């Protein structure tokens, strides 16, 4: 019995953290938000650590670790607001392809860092005015929006019927339009298809949910990391900033804001661990847990993002300190793959409520 990280997992966490501290400075994040290039560089480096193929079996060139291990990595990435295709390329697409035993070639390429996936799940989660896909068993037509990682080589597309398809970004009739979003560390966009060839990966709704659960838990873990960093920054800033001849950390109001942040955030750590573990190991709880974990982390993350900014006073509002990168990352995670109200409604219906 050991609820928490194993020794290996602690080592993994430490090494990813060290790597990111070294390689993904805020300056690098800023650079990425100006021109997306550094992203590929970061991704290549992550892949040399084996993170691109974290869920891909060793025989296909991956590291064959568990979803819980991936959760740990996602938390580290969130902590450093790392621009990366981890969610799409290292988690959701591999879960889909492994579960349906498809396209080992792409898995191998992904593990090596030579191939990136993007995600188009909005049609399955909630279709928008002006969007809609039609797949005739062969080719795909229509438009889907809020696609994550628009610069991918291949897109994993979920239809309204919750079928999963693969579409090559360079296939006939595929058009991409970037849709600027609030979180500049992520590239979001719209995809249109005109008789574009698409490969069916799965018609099994369980596979769809397995992929979605994994994605949701990773977003929750990303928020955990990002919120933890904001809290740490707030405590550190309060310990240095002086007003009224005292560090502001000695004011009860500031102390209590920080106490409320940690009191809300600390239990989230165990929740994210369990949700990551449950993905493969406690399958009958995985879906409800994933819904609740992402919803709860979204709420706590929003509270921490706002409160940590307030502790920083005016400085928290500036680009100088750059706190807003975390603020916006948490905001993005909140909406992507299901916002809190939708997730709670889903959790209720899964429990026949």
């Amino acid at each position, binding site marked *: 019995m050991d609820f928490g990280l194993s020794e290996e997992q602690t080592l993994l966490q430490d090494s990813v953290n060290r790597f990111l501290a070294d390689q993904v400075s805020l300056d690098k994040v800023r650079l990425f938000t100006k021109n997306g290039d550094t992203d590929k560089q970061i991704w290549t480096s992550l892949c040399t650590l084996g993170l691109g193929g974290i869920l891909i079996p060793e025989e296909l060139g991956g590291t064959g670790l568990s979803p819980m291990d991936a959760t740990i990595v996602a938390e580290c990435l969130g902590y450093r607001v790392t621009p990366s295709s981890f969610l799409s390329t290292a988690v959701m697409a591999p879960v889909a392809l492994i579960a349906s035993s498809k396209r080992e070639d792409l898995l191998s390429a992904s593990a090596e860092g030579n191939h990136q996936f993007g995600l188009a799940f909005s049609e399955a989660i909630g279709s928008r005015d002006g969007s809609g896909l039609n797949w005739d068993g062969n080719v795909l037509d229509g438009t889907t929006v809020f696609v994550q990682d628009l610069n991918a080589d291949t897109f994993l597309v979920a239809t309204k019927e919750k079928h999963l398809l693969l579409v090559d970004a360079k296939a006939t009739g595929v058009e991409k339009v970037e849709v600027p979003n609030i979180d500049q560390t992520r590239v979001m966009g719209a995809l249109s298809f005109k008789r574009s060839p698409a490969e069916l990966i799965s018609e099994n709704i369980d596979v769809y949910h397995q992929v979605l659960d994994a994605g949701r838990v990773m977003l929750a873990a990303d928020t955990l990391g990002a919120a933890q960093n904001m809290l740490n920054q707030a405590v550190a800033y309060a310990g240095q900033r002086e007003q009224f001849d005292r560090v502001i950390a000695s004011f009860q109001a500031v102390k209590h804001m920080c106490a409320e942040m940690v*009191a809300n955030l600390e239990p989230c750590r165990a929740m994210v661990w369990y949700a990551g573990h449950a993905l493969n190991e406690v399958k009958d709880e995985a879906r409800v847990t994933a819904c609740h974990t992402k919803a709860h982390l979204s709420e706590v993350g929003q509270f921490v993002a706002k409160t940590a900014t307030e502790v920083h006073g005016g400085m928290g509002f500036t680009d100088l300190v750059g706190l807003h990168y975390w603020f916006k990352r948490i905001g993005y995670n909140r909406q992507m793959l299901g916002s809190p109200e939708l997730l709670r409604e889903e959790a209720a219906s899964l429990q026949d*409520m």
Partner: protein
Amino acid sequence: MDLSYSAEHEAFRQQVIAFLKKHKTLAPVGAGLRSAKTRDWQALLIEHGYTARTIPREYGGFGAKPDLLKGRIIAEEFARAQVPGGLSGQGIAMLVPTLLELGTEEQKQQFIRPTLSGEMIWCQGYSEPGAGSDLASLKTSAVLEGENWLVNGQKIWTSTAQIADWIFCLVRTEPDAPKHKGISFLLFRMDTPGIEVRPLVDMTGLANFNETFFTDVVVPKNQIVGFRGEGWRVANTILGNERDSLGNPNATLSRLNALIRLMKSETVGGISLISMPAYRDRLMKIQGRVMALRFNDMRILSAKLNRKDASLARLIVKLQGTELRHDLEALAIDAMGEAGLCFGESDYLRDGGSWQYQYMYFLGLIIGGGTSQIQKNIISERGLGMPREPRVNANTAT
């Protein structure tokens, strides 16, 4: 993450289950603390190591070596079978560990066995009307006159004082020392002349607590734990233990399940409460918070087992757990609407009125055992390393 139990622990669980199956009819449901049934049950549990498990045999315990998981298994299985576990008053929960750590051999011999057996019931004399959050400012005095202490003053929040045989009590013995250094930890009989206990009715309508008054109460000199002036340290040896039990997420989970049952069965205008989306959303929010605290609790247990640090996880339990519980009870009342107002026997009362009762009782717990404000001070200082409130002179504070 390894959620499995070892073969030894699985076997132990089976043993507990078998015990419960065989003996559960002996359990003293609704029996008084003084009843023979209660004491016999306690004796049976000690004999099998299902309570007082790690306390040495020589003092009346079972004498097993510490095994947190076995402790957890016992708690889980008793809860599942809905059978009351061992006695858990303040004597057992707080005084016994204190004596084991700081008592003289004579004190251990004298007090631990009868306390464990349920013969000797204790109450705690810490808080005073003027010393709540600032407990160290307590004023109840004990003056050494010959071979006895002479105790004068007043305590409040002394639960079970009206039935207790003994009290463990913080008193000021060195009035000239700095406030934390002038306190001593005394033990004395509640039937000593000069003690008056007045029930303190609270907002729930029950007298869950008392006020206790001392007038020239004579206490033999040797009934002190630790040295003179060390009482603050003695009391703090175990104060943390008390806090941990407030806001226990496993109790909250049972309560959540009761709430779900209620919301599924109760209807308004023919519609079940759970099918009203605004209530359902609130229910789901609470379920998410319960989940987070339950996993946090598993992490704490596991950290103890595996000697990892989970001090932050532990520090926030009381604050988060009591607020969550209060919110949970509030949802039940809101969802029931007018029916949620019922309190006291009627055909329309649900679950024995426990929703209103617990709603208030947990507001009491948000305040008691260190108010939320004090909790936040502690979390920011001990958990986040933030500076203490600067000390202010009494005469500059206006």
